């Protein structure tokens, strides 16, 4: 931690900061929607922003991968003309929690792998991420300590950490330092501030404890033993296949491609929309065959996508511990409970082998 990379913003100046930021660029920040629901929305004034919030309904990935994303425009007629399209704009995301930053890092990994998702990569360049560290758990659904997403590491331009009567701000990119300069409200950090940050992080390490009774490094083994675990059958009865868990997941990126022609029937666009492995039509192919007809197989697939497959391919766990899937599930399927059940069943199996 180099002191020169840190700045101080007095808490009383946060409103000034946001309003100044709003003159520089469009800002999206967490806004309260009622009934303990929050959403990232573009804001007009600082008053709309909720600095204390639980993860938003949909993660900020919606700005990187819009729910509906135009891919190309075409005209037919005498000659077919096709033009690829990317819609993007400069945007500052303010108040992004470390779990959601971890989610964007997962997306970066996959979408910059071949074949590159050009639209995503262009959009990413135009988005500035200002993080906001959580000093305590948002609620009982989070499992961020298990995946190590409760602390800021990388993947942001600025990181705000709330201390007694000020925010200590970590500058992590030139985009970030530009904002510090342009808003002109920050003071350099001093040793005392760094000390207080250190104290906070120590306090956090007492609050945030691994929420799952295993360690990350055992995940591949656990999942290799769990393909026929009994919990999947239980989920068959519970799951409504509404697709909420995948819609709200910061690391899901599956989409469907559709076309829309205008009423002249001569021109139109090809676009993608978010799609989900939990939905009936997802794995259906010609001839009415469905590769994952059973809800249990779909739920199992979801868990393997988060905790097994991507470890082989990218060396990363694709769960950020944000807890959204558990929070949104009407049927009460809870990620922490599913993992715990897998661990218990797998332990029992190992013991039987030895006894």
């Amino acid at each position, binding site marked *: 931690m180099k002191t020169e990379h840190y700045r101080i913003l007095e808490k009383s100046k946060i409103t000034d900061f946001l309003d100044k930021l709003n003159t520089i660029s469009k800002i999206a920040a967490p806004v309260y929607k009622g009934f303990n629901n929050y959403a990232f929305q573009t804001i007009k004034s600082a008053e709309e922003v909720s600095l204390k919030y639980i993860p938003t309904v949909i993660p900020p990935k919606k700005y990187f991968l819009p729910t509906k994303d135009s891919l190309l425009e075409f005209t037919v007629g005498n000659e077919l003309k096709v033009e690829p399209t990317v819609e993007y704009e400069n945007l500052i995301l303010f108040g992004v929690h470390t779990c959601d930053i971890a989610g964007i890092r997962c997306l970066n990994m996959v979408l910059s792998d071949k074949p590159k998702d050009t639209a995503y990569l262009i959009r990413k360049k135009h988005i500035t991420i200002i993080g906001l560290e959580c000093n305590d758990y948002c609620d009982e659904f989070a499992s961020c300590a298990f995946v190590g997403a409760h602390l800021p590491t990388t993947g942001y331009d600025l990181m705000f950490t709330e201390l007694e009567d000020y925010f200590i701000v970590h500058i992590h990119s030139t985009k970030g330092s530009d904002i510090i300069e342009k808003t002109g409200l920050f003071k350099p950090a001093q040793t005392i501030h760094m000390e207080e940050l250190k104290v906070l992080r120590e306090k956090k390490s007492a609050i945030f404890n691994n929420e799952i009774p295993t360690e990350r490094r055992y995940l591949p083994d656990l999942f290799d033993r769990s393909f026929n675990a009994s919990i999947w059958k239980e989920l068959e009865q*519970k799951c409504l296949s*509404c697709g909420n868990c995948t819609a709200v997941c910061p690391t899901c990126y599956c989409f469907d491609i559709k076309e829309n022609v205008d*009423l002249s029937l001569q021109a139109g666009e090809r676009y993608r929309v978010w799609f989900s492995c939990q939905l009936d039509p997802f794995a259906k192919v010609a001839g009415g065959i469905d590769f994952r007809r059973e809800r249990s197989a779909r739920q199992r697939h979801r868990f393997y996508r988060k905790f097994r497959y991507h470890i082989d391919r990218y060396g990363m766990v694709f769960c950020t511990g944000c807890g959204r899937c558990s929070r949104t599930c009407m049927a009460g399927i809870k990620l922490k409970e599913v993992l715990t059940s897998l661990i218990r069943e797998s332990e029992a199996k190992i013991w039987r082998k030895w006894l």
Partner: protein
Amino acid sequence: MSKPKVAFFDFACCEGCQLQVANIGEPLLDVLDIVQVVEFREVMSEKWNGDFDVAFVEGSITDEHAVERIKKIRERSKILVALGSCATIGGVNGMKNSFDLEEVGKYVYGESYKFFPTLHTKAVHQVVPVDYFINGCPIYQPEFLTVLKCILQGIPYYVPEYPVCVECKLNENVCMYDRGVTCMGPVTKAGCNSWCINNGNICYGCRGLTINPNTEGFKEVLKNYKIPEDFLIRKIEMYNKCKEFDKS
């Protein structure tokens, strides 16, 4: 190339879906550029004696007279489209099927009920083959345009087989169950872009049940939310009573 000849017909319904078409706004001009509307009682007086390329049928089939009429329309139409809940799933008219027909007749017409013979309510496809379905009570205008364009391109239109929750979640609405209200979204076919919930209303299930609903699982969910099962059955039957004719 002459424009396809399009007609609109209504059976037992409120004609609200046809009104949605008439009231579609600016796109109506573009629609009229590509089709020729030859019969549409709600908006014009002209009639047509020939065949139709596309016939949109609103309403459910509730008596012998209607059965004969829809069969004739089917014979005269290359493509038949069921328009709105009454036509696609029987809709609210289906509630009649929960009662004895004689009792229903007496309730409405008193002692002269014998002059008004009635049948169990059926959706259009339960009487004649239907090529395209536009669900909803009323229909969702953007979906009407999508289906019309599919018809004119000669490609099928697939009604989404997943629940309204999918679209609702992407619209980032606060879940009705979080608000403490019972919503039919989890078991109702999507395609309406969660129109009602976006505007603060619950989903009434007007588009019909999803193809593969986890009924037992949903009953468990209702228990958790302390919602009585028969309350939900009645909610489902408000629009979906005719579904039982699909099983035979």
